[in-house]
């Protein structure tokens, strides 16, 4: 089958190199001979109903509010979730998938997209730095998820969402858990190209979208980077 990856509003939600996640998914599919394409959607364009994986990145408060308004008006992301497409959102993108999130110094509440059973409010301290988590339900070296987080909001999960991972080093959701999973919708705080640092998570998203398993890809530099980052964060 062909696989369509959709990068949503890079100009609003892409402040930390989050478009890297799209590049990683595209190449990891293509390197295995899968016919994969990347569609970039900007404000003013409609989200394609043919998309298989939708990606949302990080952004500032104003951009979050705009993105929610535009995505509600478009409706394409909600339709994607209804037809069981994969949604992967990082940082501010994760926050807007929830019921509500706070913005500004006063932590003014904004309504989110309601695609994840989570709510976000300002935490006691800004989370900035390397983060290391353990991916729930996964084993082995690849179950360690490494990244960089930079966010002021902390996220509480409702009963329909389960944490993606458990925090070893860093803040994550703020309560020892990190990220949220609900069906094929995933949110996580490590921003930027988190999938470049965690190829197993990238392949998991591809497998979810394709509906079948994938052969491993051997790339020495990807393994070396993981070794270096894990060693750095563990001190």
């Amino acid at each position, binding site marked *: 089958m062909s696989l369509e990856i959709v990068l949503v509003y*890079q*100009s*609003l939600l*892409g*402040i*930390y*190199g*989050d*478009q*890297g996640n799209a*590049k*990683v998914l595209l*190449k990891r599919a293509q390197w295995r001979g899968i016919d994969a394409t990347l569609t970039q959607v900007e*404000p*003013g364009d409609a989200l394609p109903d043919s998309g298989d994986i939708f990606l949302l990145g990080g952004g*500032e408060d*104003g*951009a979050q*509010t*705009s993105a929610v308004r535009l995505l509600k008006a478009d409706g394409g992301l909600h339709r994607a979730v209804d037809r069981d497409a994969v949604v992967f959102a990082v940082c501010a993108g994760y926050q807007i998938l929830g019921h509500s999130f706070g913005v500004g110094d006063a932590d003014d509440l904004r309504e989110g997209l309601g695609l994840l059973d989570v709510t976000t409010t300002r935490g006691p301290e*800004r989370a*900035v*730095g390397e983060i290391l988590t353990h991916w729930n339900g996964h084993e082995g070296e690849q179950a360690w998820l490494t990244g*960089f987080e*930079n966010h*002021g909001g902390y996220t509480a999960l409702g009963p329909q969402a389960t944490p993606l991972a458990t925090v070893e080093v860093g803040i994550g959701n703020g309560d020892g858990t990190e990220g949220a999973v609900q069906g094929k919708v995933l949110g996580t705080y490590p*921003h*930027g*190209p988190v999938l*470049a*640092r965690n190829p197993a998570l990238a392949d998991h998203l591809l497998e979810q979208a394709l509906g079948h398993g994938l052969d491993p890809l051997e*790339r020495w*530099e*990807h393994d*070396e*980077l993981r070794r*270096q980052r894990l060693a750095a964060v563990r001190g």
Partner: protein
Amino acid sequence: MAESMTPELARRAAPARITRGQRLHLNAAVAAGNLAAFASRISGRGSGASIKGQLMTKLDKDALAKLLQGRRIAAVSGTNGKTTTTHLLAAAVRAGLGADTQRLVTNADGANLHYGIASALSTAPYADLAVLETDERVVADVIRLGKPEVLVLLNFSRDQLDRHHEIKSLARSWRTALEAAGADGPVVIANSQEPMIVWAAQTAKRVVWVETRSVWAQDSALCPACGSELRGHDAPGEQTAQRWHCTGCDLAEPEPAWSVSGDTIIDPEGTVWEPKLQVPGAFNVSNAALAMAAAAELGVPAGTAIRGMRKVTAPAGRFATTTIGDTTVRLLLAKNPAGWAEALPIINTDTVVLAIDSVAADGRDVSWLWDVDFEQLAGKNVIAAGPRALDLAVRLSYAEVDFTVKQDLAEALAGHPNPVDVLATYTPFQKLRKMGGLA
């Protein structure tokens, strides 16, 4: 007065209004600072500019304010190109001064925070013209304390977001300071293509707009005034005649007085100038246009300004060609995605070394690597160097660019019979300057 000098440039600054007591206090602080800087130099801990500034300010908390007084000041700020533009503007003014160059002081070493500026000014108490590279965080203070005649605002983009969480807050500080300065404030020379710059400069008493050819538009999706979406932006790398405007308020790209077209600069009278600079790249033609517009405000005619700017070769080591080991290298600096977007097209060697670090001065988060179009290096032999070489290696792997990893800089630079371009973030760049005998 030199024969060719315009009356505007010949005009002296009003003398500083500080008492004899205040002057003595300052002089004592400067003397102590000089001693500390000397100690720093002989012990090999660097030029001592910052240490000197620090000690002077400790001994006289008003040192910077006093040192700024009695001068006609042109301040240069923005995310990228500050050092080079400061050198271009200083060279233009120097050309205008002819034999009278001792009237000019500038912080040529790139030390652009309070201490660095104070230190540079203290070396030239009688220079009444100051061209000052000014960090974005210091602009508001320089406007308040120094009442600059001219302020150049180059560009504005994301930079080290692990420290500056909201890029708009800096622009807001400029806007507020310009508003507070009112009629005493500077004439602003500003880039009309960048919405954040236009918004920040709106409160200035007068703005001279310069249309540059920015290739970076990724930090201006939303209107800084009202938060609505902006339209009419060129996609990164593409250029059309279209000007940007806000969909929610009347903020829009202003009509420029000066503009850049290809390798030429067009002045307000429509005269086309070919700068033919020694510093490379389209970005530096834009920097030169802003410097020329600033020089014109100070009374330096365009032809004189260009003659001066052509003498600029390697501002604080940027674009310098030197030898490290047995290898001829050209040193390029890029500190953020916009900087890399400007610098990558300048690379013209088959083998290129890219050196990445992530200490505080570089930004601790290297996610920005994914906002840089490394795909354009396909076909070149890329050596990933520096402490974060592996992050770059993975980025290059997904870009399908051939690479090798040599974290150690000396190793990365060894064994190249042909010249090599080296593009580095801040910390490796400073190491390379030292290795090349330039600092």
